[in-house]
């Protein structure tokens, strides 16, 4: 279980997180929702070590991640699909997937995961020799997810995977997240599209101004009038 205990973080001296506490249960989908600037992305950045929290603990497998570098956190089994995809534009689709497996040595296992990724996203197989910069937005999103899966993570952090995608592709992305869960992986999802996120989430948290203000199962939160107010950001 991944657990955040009262995590605070600052950007250039401004406090962005002022006490985020949440727990991510294994094999489940956990969603973080909230308005723009609530601290959702910052929370993920703290977990993966791009940003160091100023206070609080992030506990994973008896270790506090707040003291570790990103590469050691990735080594410990956590990967992030960043907001805005961030594929390597001048590398081929195939090379991008290789980069996802950068820390792994077992060629046989890597091959197995590669064919699984191609099963999840058949279009990536077709485009495997193309440079990632020539893919459409939707294809790049799939590549970003596929690349993250290539590191064989136990926990997949996903930052706004549906952002900027056509409605049909949004459905596909959520379908894939559900499929990933069914292989036993844990997903922590950050989304603006709160309805979609809560509909597939086992558990959800609502962030407001850097604080976790509500939590509950996906359905509980969906039926909560507070939530409507929070995620609409009124």
């Amino acid at each position: 279980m991944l657990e955040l205990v009262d995590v605070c973080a600052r950007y250039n001296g401004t406090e962005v997180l002022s006490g985020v506490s949440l727990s991510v249960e294994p094999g489940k989908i956990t969603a973080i929702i909230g308005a723009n600037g609530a601290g959702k992305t910052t929370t993920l950045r703290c977990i993966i070590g791009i940003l160091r929290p100023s206070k609080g603990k992030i506990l994973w497998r008896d270790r506090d991640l707040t003291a570790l570098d990103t590469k050691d956190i990735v080594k410990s089994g956590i990967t992030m699909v960043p907001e805005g995809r961030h594929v390597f534009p001048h590398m081929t689709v195939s090379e991008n997937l290789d980069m996802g497996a950068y820390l792994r040595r077992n060629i046989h296992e890597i091959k197995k995961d590669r064919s699984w990724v191609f099963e999840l996203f058949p279009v990536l197989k077709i485009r495997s020799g193309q440079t990632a910069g020539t893919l459409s937005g939707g294809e790049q999103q799939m590549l970003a997810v596929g690349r993250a899966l290539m590191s064989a993570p136990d926990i997949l952090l996903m930052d706004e995977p549906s952002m900027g995608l056509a409605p049909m592709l949004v459905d596909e992305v959520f379908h894939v997240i559900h499929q990933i869960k069914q292989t036993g992986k844990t997903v922590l999802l950050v989304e603006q599209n709160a309805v979609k996120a809560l509909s597939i989430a086992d558990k959800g948290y609502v962030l407001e101004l850097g604080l976790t203000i509500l939590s509950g199962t996906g359905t509980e939160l969906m039926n909560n009038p507070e939530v409507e107010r929070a995620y609409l950001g009124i």
Partner: protein
Amino acid sequence: MKGWDILYYLVNGLPIGAIYALVALGYSLIYASAGVLNWSQGDMVMLGAFIGYNLHCLLGLNFILALLITTPAVACIGMLVERIVLRSLRKRSSPPVNVVIGTLGVAIICRNLALAIWGPDAQLFRSPVGSVPVEIGTLRLFPQDIFILILGIALMILLQYFLKYTREGKALRAVAQDRMAASLMGIDVGKSDTLAFAASAAMGAVAGILIAPLFFVTFNMGAGIGLKGFVAAVVGGLGNIPGAIGGGFFLGLIESFASGKISSGYRDAIAFTVLILILWLKPAGLFSKITKETV
């Protein structure tokens, strides 16, 4: 222009172009990975020339052996520059321009150290492959020029292979294309910067030891060659690896034409005028359209 003329300019321009390309690669590799300019690149050339001179000419070591010792030695100096200047300044989140000034400091220190160790006099470095030219018609091919071309191009191919097919090389390209995403893959981005500095210094060292027999070895030779290499890198598009190679050869040929057609005294002025024109017409570099790929 007659066919012989063109050959003459090629023969004169390509070897020095290969040297510029090696130096330009150093700038571009570091710029691609770390996003900073390394002004000590020219002085890595000087150090390569001097250490090679010391081993080969003073201690009488075999040239190849001298090359094999000099290159990793200068690469280590490059790594030291990354550790001391880039890493420590980055830890204090200084702006990139401070790093650039830091590397300028390194350049001046290197120059003064060389002055203290080897003195102010220009040193003669005899070509290890002899100086008797091969004559074909009116054309004279010098063995050192051919040697420069072969070794230079071999090194460029080696670099391309490293970037394309090795684990660390691919990681360096990933860092160059998206530093944040690279760290999410578990890549040690700091190590990639160290590698870029080491490789750049190594290429500078080889350029230095190759060019030493063409000119004299002096403590301040890094300034001129460093500037030329930088211009070649900018013409090819800073951070663009194939562009740096193209930019280097292009600059070498322009110089060759300028000194052959007009006057060698105006060589630099003409070369730089052409370069300003190119940057005016194509601000992203001469090769921005042909090769979109950076690293």
